[in-house]
């Protein structure tokens, strides 16, 4: 007898929350927002401001939910702030977005990120250095007291001083304006008009992961503001948090799967990059010189400084040179030597790996903040790490309590074989080490990954369904989430005002209720962890570094088989476990979407981290995205040009027409 069964039958401990399995609450609204992170919160606020009655549902408590729940340090694309060197249209020339990021989303964010920051300020968030704590810093504008990162002359990436309080402040604002919040409610199914695949979206159903209560949300329009799925290839079952993998265990991919299930078009789901397989340290806790630690001086075991160079290979000797442009350069973006020449910023020497292997630079390396100016040192170990998600307590407080002093001490970097270190956009010592677990461990985080194909209204291919933040194919980043949420909230409210409510199909609700509750009725069965690890194994083996028709089809066979066997026999001991099991059903479905899109792409792509042994030809030159959808059980594949959102006119014209401002 399994121990849990023994415990349940002999010494059962009562679940601490009231049990309401089978009880149903129905709520009507103009706009339903699914996901209460940055994107969802901004969507709810802007839709309310536009006059809509708004409800928002989140798997987590909204006060700290979402990737930005613990806080955010960088607020990028503030191209309309009073200090910015480049306005949005000028920025398009200076730094055109890469084709695998959503160009319209980029333009929307450049126009609204600063407006979002100002909105946050009006709700009480500290976005400026009002008390002159960082007076004299090169990254601080003395007049506005705004602080910037990276290319200090461009002044488009804001350092959000009070970023740690971002979500509590948004939460309070939503409460104040009367947004109805449904917290710890796992939304599992979109309702469509008449229950038809591809029909107009008219709400969703979900259940409480504390009480098991069932919810039916009936809304004229729905904003999908969920996260993209992570750790699909590797799952260290007993070490979910910390540095094992980025993002929390809730990030199953609900939005993609619900939208797919309803018949919406998805794109770029085949994108991934080699992953850490659970070998990371806590994010931003090890010594490095990128992202939140940008520009930090790195030394080797003997104290020898790791040289930095500009894009032309010219050695940079001072810290000030590390934040300056190269001669003739108009703008640079973090990303090191791997960035295109045009925007390649100051970076550590590109051949560092070889020099480590030859013994010229000895491991371990250390981040030496003692050599930096006081404002730059505090800029990292204080301002940025104090505001960024998952670093205020886990990094700053933990290290400080343990005796670490950035004025005297040097923080060690990961000790890794250079061959396996660094994610695609960042160099050797970054915390997001890649590939150390060997081949076939891949990830879908920290770059622009797959999601919904959306138009200039941020509407999906389905009527009534909008998307914001990570849920949009090719969108990522905090200020992008906020901007697109704000924009999609307006669009969703306008649609809700223009259309009539539709009643959901009772058969669709009943079928979902039956599916969700089945796992909570069994007294025996597989647990979520074993299923999740099993699903990861399928992705490692059949959707790994090198793909082919044969292995991908084997993957689909495995997924079907798990769905019909182990997953059909899964059991949940309480509503919390029910959430995790339903998370497994989502993961299985998202794996299927990924594999189907991988099968449909009959070419390889370096940009997408996608290699087919049977189609090695580089498909990037085709200039097309592959779009897939499912209609009545059949997978449909089509192609759209990279500039799919340019058919209506210039970004400025489209924004003027669709932004509703």
């Amino acid at each position, binding site marked *: 007898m399994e*121990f849990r069964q023994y415990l349940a039958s002999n010494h059962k401990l*009562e679940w*601490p929350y009231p049990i309401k399995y089978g009880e149903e609450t129905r709520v009507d609204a103009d706009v339903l927002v699914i996901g209460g992170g940055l994107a969802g919160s901004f969507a709810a606020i802007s839709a309310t401001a536009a006059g809509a009655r708004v409800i928002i549902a989140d798997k*987590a*408590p909204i*006060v*700290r*939910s979402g990737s930005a*729940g*613990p806080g955010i340090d960088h607020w990028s694309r503030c191209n309309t702030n009073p200090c910015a060197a480049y306005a949005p249209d000028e920025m398009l020339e200076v730094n055109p977005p890469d084709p695998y990021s959503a160009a319209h989303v980029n333009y929307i964010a450049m126009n609204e990120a600063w407006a979002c920051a100002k909105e946050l300020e009006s709700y009480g968030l500290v976005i400026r250095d009002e008390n002159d704590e960082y007076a004299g810093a090169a990254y601080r504008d003395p007049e506005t007291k705004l602080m910037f990162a990276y290319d200090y002359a461009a002044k488009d990436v804001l350092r959000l001083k009070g970023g*740690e309080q971002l979500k*509590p402040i948004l939460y309070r604002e939503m409460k104040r304006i009367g947004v109805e919040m449904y917290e*710890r409610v796992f939304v599992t199914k979109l309702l469509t008009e008449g229950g038809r695949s591809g029909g107009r979206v008219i709400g969703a159903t979900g259940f409480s*992961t*504390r009480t098991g209560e069932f919810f039916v949300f009936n809304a004229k329009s729905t904003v999908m503001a969920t996260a993209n799925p992570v750790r699909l290839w590797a799952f260290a*079952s*007993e*070490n*979910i*948090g*910390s*540095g094992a993998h980025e*993002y*929390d*265990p*809730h990030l199953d991919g609900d939005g993609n799967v619900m939208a797919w299930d309803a018949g919406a078009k998805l794109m770029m789901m085949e994108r991934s990059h080699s992953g850490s397989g659970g070998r990371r*340290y*806590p994010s931003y*806790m*090890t*010594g490095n010189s990128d992202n939140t630690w940008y520009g930090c001086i790195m030394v080797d075991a003997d104290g020898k400084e790791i040289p930095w160079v500009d894009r032309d290979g010219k050695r940079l000797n001072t810290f000030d040179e590390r934040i300056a442009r190269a001669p003739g350069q108009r703008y640079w973006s973090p990303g090191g030597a791997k960035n295109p020449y045009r925007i390649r910023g100051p970076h550590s020497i590109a051949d560092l790996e070889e020099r480590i292997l030859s013994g010229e630079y000895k491991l*371990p390396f*250390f981040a*030496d903040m*003692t050599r930096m100016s006081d404002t730059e040192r505090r800029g990292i170990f204080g301002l940025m790490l104090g505001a960024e*998600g*998952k670093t*205020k*307590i*886990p990094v700053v*407080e*933990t*290290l400080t*309590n*343990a*005796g*670490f002093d950035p004025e*005297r*001490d*040097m*923080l*060690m970097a990961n000790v890794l074989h250079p061959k396996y270190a660094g994610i695609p956009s960042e160099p050797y010592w970054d915390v997001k080490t890649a590939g150390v677990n060997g081949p076939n461990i891949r990830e879908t985080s920290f770059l622009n990954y797959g999601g919904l194909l959306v138009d200039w209204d941020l509407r999906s291919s389905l009527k009534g369904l909008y998307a914001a933040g990570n849920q949009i194919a090719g969108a990522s980043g905090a200020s992008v989430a906020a901007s697109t949420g704000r924009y999609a909230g307006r669009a969703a409210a306008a649609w809700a005002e223009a259309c009539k409510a539709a009643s959901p199909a009772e058969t669709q609700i009943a079928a979902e209720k039956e599916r969700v509750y089945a796992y909570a009725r069994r007294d025996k069965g597989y647990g979520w962890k074993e299923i999740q690890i099993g699903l990861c194994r399928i992705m490692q083996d059949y959707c790994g570094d090198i793909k082919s028709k044969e292995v991908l089809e084997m993957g689909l066979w495995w997924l079907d088989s798990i769905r019909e066997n182990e997953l059909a026999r899964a059991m949940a001991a309480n509503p*919390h476990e029910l959430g995790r099991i339903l998370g497994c059903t989502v993961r299985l479905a998202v794996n299927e979407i990924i594999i189907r899109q991988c099968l449909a792409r009959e070419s390889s792509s370096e940009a997408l981290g996608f290699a087919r042994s049977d189609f090695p030809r580089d498909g990037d030159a085709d200039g097309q995205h592959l779009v897939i959808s499912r209609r009545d059980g059949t997978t449909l594949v089509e192609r759209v040009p990279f500039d799919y959102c340019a058919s209506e006119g210039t970004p400025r014209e489209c924004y003027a027409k669709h932004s509703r401002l």
Partner: protein
Amino acid sequence: MYNAYFVPNPATPNECVSFDESKCVGCNHCVETCRCDVLMPNPEKGSPPIVLYPDECWFCGTCVADCPVGGGAITLNHPINQRICWKRKETGEIFRVKYEYMK
């Protein structure tokens, strides 16, 4: 006295957060803040929450950041495989994040 309990293995990480019983007032604010429901209210009112699902903790630290008592009522404990080293420049001594410092 020797231990001889009939219990499953400890979850890993063992204790993602720990409570100082002399400081924690059992208000359950952390239970309400935790995104993953790692913490459950203690059946005994006023006592520190029960860490039911340490293996789902994301180590975001918001339970600590938002604790109304503060001052070490809750502490975040990175597991052993996540403890970081540093070197004191002047002396060359090596230190690390240790449990003794964190409790």
